[in-house]
């Protein structure tokens, strides 16, 4: 009896379980790209979200004025607009929309849809969390803050159905890059109004079956915590050249699970390879490993309102005692040591201001009144996830070894970690920042006084004057020079201790073609193809 039962187990496994074909094989056959996307998007309404995870899905469903280029972050292929021009100092932009542009339900895509989108995101009643991405438009900030109520005063207008004029509050030479962010995408006015008022947050217009987009793919299904399924949009203007039949986004939150699934043939690409697995994958499956620069920086945030940490020499000593190369070689594989906040991007190449200098660090700390760390208080380093714990432990060791300074690790859950920083209820915290577009302003504007993302208690009038001067500067070269000067001032004051430019470690199957390294990691789904070798 028992023997029969034992026979049944493998038989059952084979009948029900044994995979004759992996999910990737099946997806290759059906031309469906399987993408690990870390988590479910908060929403698919581009006006209610702020993250990268959302961006990955939304840019499959909607397209902005300018499309993403498969090979370069600084090439601007036509998207919903076929051409554009600007005045000499980049304050007036005119976009010419494609006359054959359509929503996925067949309705024409016109400049009114763009105006509606900007009106909706900026409308105070919607309370869109990322409305500030549109503040570069003239009067947009005033409208969003309720200081003016007439939207016609905001610098967007539609001279005809296929022309969109945008007037900026200051020269914005990087506008084309910004329009690739979902906050600048059009939304289907006719669909949103069918399901409620323009400023209603909780309407089902984004649900599968209701969502109408102008992107290369249509939303087919969203099973929470399981997958988001999109299928090819036959009405997309370039549908003839879209080689995929769909993209499936799989929200695998645990990156070890995701890696295992990838190696078991369940994904074409992963969101992130855990640093602990980089060496293993490098030796066992080098054909899958991708290590590429990414527009993000890891740093240590300092609460400069703490008495001892308000001394610039102390902060600089802590910074100079960090051996960034060691960190990147052993813990943050794929990252590049850095001595400033902004990664190089386009024509902007910031100076690397701070580097590992143990003797200089010791001298500075002694000068500040704490020779060999004597009398220096025992501060806490705030972290949110187990992933950063090893980095903090390395910092603990470096500070102890070089400066004789002892610190403790203070782990908090994500909500408490963010709140502690926003209320300046911390000493030192591990932080990071990801750029939204390729311009140093995305890394520098946040350190101004009162900015909700500053969280260091640091501010500097000269710094803000330089940023403001840069904002008014119409000449792109002069503008970048001013940013560079401001960045030097900021880093020399060290309210943050830069650690590394983040590299993106992930896995990609070789049959995925048309996927090239991009700083912003916005791979245009419609140019990707699946070509498995036999």
């Amino acid at each position, binding site marked *: 009896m028992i023997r029969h039962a034992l026979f049944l187990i493998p038989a059952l*496994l084979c009948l*029900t*379980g*044994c*995979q004759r074909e*992996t*999910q990737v094989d099946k997806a290759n056959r059906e031309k469906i790209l399987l993408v690990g996307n870390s988590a*479910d998007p*908060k*929403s698919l*309404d581009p006006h*209610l*979200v*702020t993250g990268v995870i959302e961006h990955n899905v939304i840019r499959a469903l909607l397209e902005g004025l300018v499309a993403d280029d498969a090979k370069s972050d600084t090439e601007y292929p036509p998207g919903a607009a076929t051409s554009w021009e600007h005045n000499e100092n980049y304050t007036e932009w005119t976009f010419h929309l494609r006359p054959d542009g359509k929503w996925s339900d067949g309705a024409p895509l016109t400049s009114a849809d763009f105006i509606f989108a900007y009106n909706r995101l900026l409308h*105070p*009643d919607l*309370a*869109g*969390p*990322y*409305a*500030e991405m549109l503040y570069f438009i003239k009067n947009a900030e005033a409208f*969003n*803050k*309720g200081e003016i109520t007439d939207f016609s005063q905001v610098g967007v207008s539609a001279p005809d159905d296929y022309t969109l004029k945008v007037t900026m509050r200051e020269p914005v030479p990087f506008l084309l890059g910004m329009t690739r962010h979902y906050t600048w995408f059009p939304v289907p006015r006719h669909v949103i109004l069918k399901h409620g008022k323009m400023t209603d*947050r*909780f*309407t089902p217009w*984004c649900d599968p079956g209701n969502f109408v987009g102008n992107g290369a793919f249509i939303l087919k299904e969203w*099973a*929470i*915590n*399981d997958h988001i399924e999109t299928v090819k949009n036959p009405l997309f203007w370039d549908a003839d050249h879209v080689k995929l039949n769909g993209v499936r986004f*799989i929200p*695998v*939150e*645990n990156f*070890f*699970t*995701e890696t*295992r*699934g990838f*190696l*078991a*043939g*369940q994904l074409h690409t992963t969101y992130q390879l855990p640093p602990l697995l980089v060496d293993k994958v490098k030796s066992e499956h080098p054909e899958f490993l991708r290590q590429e620069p990414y527009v993000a920086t890891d740093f240590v945030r300092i609460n400069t309102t703490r008495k001892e940490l308000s001394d610039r020499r102390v902060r600089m000593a802590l910074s100079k005692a960090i051996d960034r190369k060691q960190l990147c070689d052993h813990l943050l594989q794929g990252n590049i040591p850095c001595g400033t906040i902004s990664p190089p991007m386009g024509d902007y190449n910031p100076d690397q201001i701070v580097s590992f200098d143990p003797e200089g660090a010791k001298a500075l700390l002694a000068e500040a009144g704490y020779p060999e760390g004597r009398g220096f208080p025992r501060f806490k380093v705030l972290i949110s996830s187990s992933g950063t714990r090893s980095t903090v432990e390395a910092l603990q060791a470096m500070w102890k070894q070089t400066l004789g300074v002892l610190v403790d690790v203070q782990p908090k*859950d*994500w*909500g*408490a970690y*963010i*709140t*502690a920083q*926003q209320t300046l209820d911390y000493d030192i915290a591990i932080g990071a920042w990801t750029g939204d577009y390729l311009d140093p302003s995305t890394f520098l504007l946040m350190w101004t006084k009162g*900015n*909700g*993302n500053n*969280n260091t208690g640091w501010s500097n009038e000269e710094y803000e004057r330089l940023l403001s001067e840069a904002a008014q500067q119409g000449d792109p070269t002069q503008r970048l020079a001013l940013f560079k000067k401001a960045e030097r001032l900021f880093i020399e004051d060290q309210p943050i201790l830069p650690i590394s430019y983040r590299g993106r470690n992930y896995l990609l199957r070789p049959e995925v073609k048309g996927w090239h390294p991009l700083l912003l990691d916005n791979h245009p789904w419609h140019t990707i193809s699946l070509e498995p070798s036999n």
Partner: protein
Amino acid sequence: MFKVIFSRLLQSLVVLWLLYTITFFMLRMLPGSPLTREKAMPEHIAKKMTNYYGLDKPVSEQYVIQLGNFLKGDPGYSFRLEGKPVNDIISQAFPVSLQMGVIAMAIAISIGIPAGCIAAARKNGLIDNGAMAVAMLGICLPSFVSGPILAEWLGRDKQLLPAHGWDSLAPSTWLLPAFTLGLAYAAYLSRLSRAGMLDMLSQDFVRTARAKGVPGWKIIIRHCLRGGLIPSVAYIGPAFAGIISGSLVIETVFQVPGLGRHFIKSIETRDYPVLLGVTMLYGALVILANFLTDVVSIWMNPRLKAKS
């Protein structure tokens, strides 16, 4: 019997109300709010959103409004998955957890109870010692260790079963998560059923039956099983409530879209409505399972029947 049921029902309602109230206020004591974002919102937007969600009202007023809505069957909308009704989230995730829990419990019962009975019948023999050693290993080995080992071996290395994912209609996706989840319960059940059976086997009526020449297997199945399984049944009830309300570890290791991940994520992101919804469901399931356990125990144990 009906009096007992009625009284238990009333007690359950009080317990559920207390659970809601305590959870509601404890959540409000946590630092941060559902509107806490990594990229901070400008102050005027944050203010508007606080107003939009009614978070600017006094906590007591929020409690009265939300409890009222909850009693009407509307636990509200998620903050984390903006605009998704909590009822929709639970109705998508609970069937998955239920399905996985039922399969895991079936695996646990079909391995644990026979193993315990056989071990008791062969007390101190090779089978007993072997089975109990395996059971102890199963109890001590946490699922965050056994899960990845099984997924690495059968999923990634042998590619016999999917390493992650869940499809309600594809049994191949059930086996690894349900087996891993059931393993620890099977181990515990085998020890409980062994202890229960040994207790029964030492009773006078068993000796009498043996003296009369009743075969060993008949003594176990006909005379001891019902009484010997009482401790196991008392354990299965609450364990079943726990198992079907989701397991964070299993759901994370195998990427199963069940309730456990919502439970933890909603704590992390202070998603009050989802957390309250899931907690209340969990509470109701525990109460129901305990109640059913009592009923089954009364049926199985004539002494309890006489008392009730």
